[in-house]
C-alpha cells in the first residue's frame, strides 16, 4: 500500500436520515437492481465475446450440416411444397434458444462457487427474481441476435421469409421458451451442489430434448413411443407454430398449428401452453430462491 488513506478528507458519516439517497418503490428498486445485473452480464460479454461468436456459428453450422444431411431426401418427404431448409429453420431457432437458456444457470453457479452470489444475497434486493430477470433479459437479447442470424441464413438457404407479423409471433414464442428454460436453469443453479452436476444435467437434457422434439423430423417419422414424448416436449410446442408461420402468411390465433396423438392445437392454445409452462417453472423455483432465507 503506497498511498496513505486519507479518510478525514471524505465524509464517512452514516447519515441517520439518509432515505433521500435511496430510490424507493418496488418497481424502481426492481428495475434498478435488474438493470445493474443485466449490465454486468453485457459488460462480461463485451469483454469476452467468444460466447456470442460461438453462439452464432453453432446454429449456422446446424443449418448447413443438417441441410446437407437431408439434401437428397425425396421431394415432398417433409410435406408438400416444403423444403428441408424451411422445415429445419424453426427447429434450429428453438433449439438454439433452448440451449442458450439451459446454460443460463452456469454463470450463476460460478457466482455461487466464487462467493459473488453472496454479494447479491446480502443486498436488500426487492426480490430475488431480479436475478432471474437479469439472466432472462441477457439470454433473450443473445437469442434474438441468434434468431435473426438463423432467419437470415435460412432465407439464403431457401427457407424464404415469414411475414412481419410472423416475425413478431416468432419473437413471442422464443421469449416464452427462453423465460421458462432460463428460470429452470437458474433453479437448478440454486439447487444443485456444484457446476459439475449442473453441466451433467445440461448435458443429459440438451441433445435428447432436441431429438425428442420435432426440430429435425416431423412426428410421423417417429416411432410411436417417441411421438408421445415429442408431443409432450415443450420444444415441440414452440417449434410447430413457428413452422406454421414459415409456411402460412395468412395465420390467425385460431389456426391449427400442430397435431398430436391427442388432438389438434391452435396457435392460441400453443401460446397458452408455453405461458403455463413458464409460469409453472417460475413458481416451482420460488422456494429455491428463498431457500437462503429471503
Amino acid at each position: 500500500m503506497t498511498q496513505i488513506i486519507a479518510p478525514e478528507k471524505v465524509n464517512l458519516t452514516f447519515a441517520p436520515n439518509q432515505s433521500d439517497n435511496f430510490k424507493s418503490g418496488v418497481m424502481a428498486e426492481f428495475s434498478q437492481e435488474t438493470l445493474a445485473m443485466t449490465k454486468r452480464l453485457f459488460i462480461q460479454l463485451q469483454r469476452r465475446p467468444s460466447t456470442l461468436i460461438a453462439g452464432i456459428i453453432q446454429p449456422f453450422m446446424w443449418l448447413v450440416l443438417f441441410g446437407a444431411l437431408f439434401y437428397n431426401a425425396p421431394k415432398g418427404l417433409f410435406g408438400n411444397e416444403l423444403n428441408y431448409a424451411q422445415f429445419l429453420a424453426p427447429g434450429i431457432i428453438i433449439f438454439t434458444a433452448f440451449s442458450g437458456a439451459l446454460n443460463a444457470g452456469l454463470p450463476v453457479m460460478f457466482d455461487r462457487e466464487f462467493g459473488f452470489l453472496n454479494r447479491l444475497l446480502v443486498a436488500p434486493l426487492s426480490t430475488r427474481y431480479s436475478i432471474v430477470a437479469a439472466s432472462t433479459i441477457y439470454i433473450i437479447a443473445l437469442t434474438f441476435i441468434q434468431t435473426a442470424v438463423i432467419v437470415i441464413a435460412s432465407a439464403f438457404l431457401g427457407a424464404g421469409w415469414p411475414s412481419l407479423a410472423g416475425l413478431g409471433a416468432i419473437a413471442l414464442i422464443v421469449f416464452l421458451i427462453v423465460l421458462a428454460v432460463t428460470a429452470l436453469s437458474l433453479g437448478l443453479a440454486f439447487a444443485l451442489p456444484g457446476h459439475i452436476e449442473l453441466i451433467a444435467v445440461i448435458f443429459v437434457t440438451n441433445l435428447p430434448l432436441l431429438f425428442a422434439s420435432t426440430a429435425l423430423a416431423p412426428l410421423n417419422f417417429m416411432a410411436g413411443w417417441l411421438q408421445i414424448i415429442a408431443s409432450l416436449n415443450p420444444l415441440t410446442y414452440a417449434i410447430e407454430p413457428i413452422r406454421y408461420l414459415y409456411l402460412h402468411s395468412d395465420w390467425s390465433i385460431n389456426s391449427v398449428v400442430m397435431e398430436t396423438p391427442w388432438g389438434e392445437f391452435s396457435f392460441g392454445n400453443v401460446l397458452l401452453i408455453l405461458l403455463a409452462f413458464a409460469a409453472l417453472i417460475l413458481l416451482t423455483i420460488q422456494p429455491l430462491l428463498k431457500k437462503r432465507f429471503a
Partner: protein
Amino acid sequence: MTVAVSIKNLQKRYGNTEAVKNVSFSVNSGEIFGLLGPNGAGKTTTIRCLTTLAKPDAGEIMISGISAIANPRLARQKIGYVAQEVALDKMLTGREMLQLQADLYHLKPKFAQPRIEQLINALGLQEYADNKTGTYSGGIRKRLDLAAGLLHQPEVLVLDEPSVGLDIESRFIFWDFLRELKKAGTTVLITSHYLEEIDALADRLAIIDQGIIISEGSPNELKDKIGGDRITLRIREFTSENEANNAKNLLVSLPFVTEVIINKAQGNSLNLVVTQGNNLSKIETSLTSLNLPIFSMSQSRPSLDDVYLAATGRTLIDAELAAAGSRDLKAEKKQQMK
C-alpha cells in the same frame, strides 16, 4: 446508549458440526466491537447468520431494533458486509463493481456518483479504479471490497477477518480508517484471530471458542477480571531445567506470586502470575539469595491471550494449531453454498 446489534442464544449446525453452540453478545451504537476467536471458533458462521446468508437453527438477531430473521430485507439495508473472502467480478473494473453495488442497494445516481468517487479517493484506489479487478493484488481487492461495503452508508459495518493477508503497513492504515469511521458514527463489528488487532481497535469484545462466547467486555474489563499482572523472567538466555526449577520453587513461595509456569519453548523462561504492584525488586532480591542472575525481566498487565488462556486452558496460538489439522475446507465450502 443504544444497542446496534444484539445476538441472543444463537445456534447453528452444519450436519454434525455445531459451528455455533451458544452465542450471545451485543454491540453498542458507535463502538468498534471485536469478535475474537481461533480458527474454527464459529466467527464466520455467526457473521453469516447476522448478514442473513445463513438461517440460524435457534436464537435471536436484532439489528437496531429489526429482527434479521423475521425481517431480513430491512436488516440487509442496515449492514455493510466485508466478507472473509473477497469475491469480485474479475471482468469488471473497480468503478463498475462499485456502480453495481450502488444499484443493488438502490442508491440514487446523484448520490451514488459522488459517493463512489469519495470512497475511491478515501481508500486510495484512484490508480486502480478503472482496471479490471482481475488484475488487483490482495490488498487492493480488500480495499475495494471495503469501499463497496461502505457505499450505502450502513449503520453497522461488519468485517470478517479483514486483515488476513494484509501486510503490516496496510493493516495499520486499515485500522486508522476504521477508527475514523467510528468517529464519524458508524458501528463496526470486526472478527479476528489476532489479539493485537482486537486489543488495539476494539472498544469492547467477545471471545468465542468452539461455538460459545466465553467472555464479553472491554479489553480492560476482561484483563481486570482475570486479575493480577504477568511477569516474564529469564534467568539466562537459555536457562537449564534445573535452574529454572530451583527458581520456580523459590518464587512460588513468595506471598505475591500466585502461579509460576516454566515455558520450555522459550528457553525455560518463567511466566509468573503476580498481584498488581511493584514486584520486580523483590523477585530480584530473592533470586540473588540463590545466586541466580537475571537475563531479562518484565512485568505487564495480562493480555487478551491471558484472558483466553484463563477461560479455555490453552493459548490462542495452541488453539489455532489444533484447529488447523481438523478442518475439511472443501466440505465446508460445499456446505456453505447451500
